[in-house]
């Protein structure tokens, strides 16, 4: 098979290229991070007025984002009061230094608000009835703790969903620039991939990190009885009586 070699030949045939976003995955992404103690204690501010706090916050954030490409693997913890201008400083610095950042905030509503305020942010949403045409399937799989993408959407590059090619959920990951989403997206490789800088803006990390399950007393009692039975069976087998 032989097709047009150059872009000029392609256009002359009235055809157009397929365009795919380029994502270089930093090798550090999969590396294990181990916290370690440092000898020098961190600086503690004993309080200041709002203007000073805002100035310091903005300077620290701007410096971090400005130097992000040369000091990879570093993190900056900003702990200042509400209204100190953290989110604004991040937005302005990202716009100025043109970094593809991944921003995580507490809720989807907050993400929507920031995306509406800062036009260089692109909103990324989890699957929902508006961006997924088989949401009932996805919802059912998710409720049972199954891996959604691998079972319902795409596996090894092969679409499993009949709507995959036009899927609005996946299309949002083709957007260029800085993405903003709710905290849960921090654990979505598609969200993190391609990002040069991660901003956790008051995101409720425990909500995303800790999975809670509620079990009623009846189920708990029943489970305990089952486990006791299993334990007895195991004892019988190991002692040669079962």
């Amino acid at each position, binding site marked *: *098979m*032989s*097709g*047009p*070699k*150059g*872009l*000029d030949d*392609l*256009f*002359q045939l009235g*055809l*157009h*290229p*397929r*365009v*795919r*976003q*380029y*994502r*270089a995955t930093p090798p550090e992404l999969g590396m294990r991070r181990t916290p370690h103690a440092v000898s020098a204690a961190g600086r503690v501010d004993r309080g200041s007025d709002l203007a000073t706090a805002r100035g310091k916050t903005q300077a620290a954030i701007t410096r971090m984002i400005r130097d992000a*490409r040369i000091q990879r693997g570093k993190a900056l913890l900003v702990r200042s009061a509400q209204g100190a201008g953290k989110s604004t400083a991040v937005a302005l610095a990202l*716009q*100025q*230094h*043109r*970094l*593809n950042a991944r921003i995580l905030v507490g809720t989807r509503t907050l993400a929507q608000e920031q995306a509406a305020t800062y036009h260089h942010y692109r909103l990324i949403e989890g699957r929902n009835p508006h961006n997924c045409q088989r949401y009932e399937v996805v919802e059912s799989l998710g409720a049972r703790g199954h891996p959604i993408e691998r079972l319902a959407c795409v596996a090894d590059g092969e679409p499993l969903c009949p709507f995959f090619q036009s899927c609005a959920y996946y299309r949002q990951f083709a957007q*260029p*620039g800085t993405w903003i989403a709710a905290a849960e997206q921090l654990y979505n490789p598609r969200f993190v991939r391609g990002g*040069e800088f991660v901003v956790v803006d008051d995101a409720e990390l425990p909500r995303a990190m800790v999975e809670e399950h509620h079990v009623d007393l009846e189920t708990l009692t029943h489970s305990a009885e089952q486990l006791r039975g299993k334990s007895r069976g195991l004892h019988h087998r190991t002692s040669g009586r079962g």
Partner: protein
Amino acid sequence: MASQAQQRPERTNRGGNDDDQLPVEVRSLIYSFAIDHLALRNEALVDLRRRGLPDDLAASVGYRSIPRKGTEHAAFLAALRREFADPLLARCPGFRDKNQRLTFWSAVGDRDGYIVPYRDELGRVTGIQMKVLGGKYLTAVGTRIKHVYHIAGEPGERRDLLTTEGGLKAQVAAFHGKAWCLGIPGQALQPEHIDVISCLQPARVIVALDQEVNPSTDAARERWCEALWKAGLPTYRATWEGEL
């Protein structure tokens, strides 16, 4: 508009004014004068038509046949020397040979060709190449590739910038695809080119090198994508079923 202009990143090197090379404004002046004093012969027009460029566009961009050796070549050089001082011409790529003598390409016998101008976003000629008819491209002696690029077409609403190898390819692609294209001579994308691309503020930079079975083109594509991505540009790659 004023605030947009203020937000534009500052270019570190505007068209090569940072070293011993002539500033782009001066290079453009000399190249434009040369283009005005050269003709576009039928042999070159046939080749440009074959590539897909209409005659009027070829003429307006500045594709011109190289002068024939003899009186035409001599008259061309004489006109240049009347307009510009020899030391100035000698510093302009294309007008000196490896022995620093004042010269220019010439057509001899069956060996003919045409010059391919590389124009920037302001229409200035940043550099030239010579296409040998039936042969390859030659880059003017003394050219610094990092200062040479060709912008063709308009950004349009989408502001997708297609980047490719070669000024003529970019021009033809822009014409037929109604696209905004940037072409550089060869596959060596330089930081200065990336600087230019950043200043153009495209919504997407699409790397559209040839689709061919060629490991060096594949490596160049990867190199371009990585360099653009590392520069913080929204980088995309174009694919199609090409020459396999």
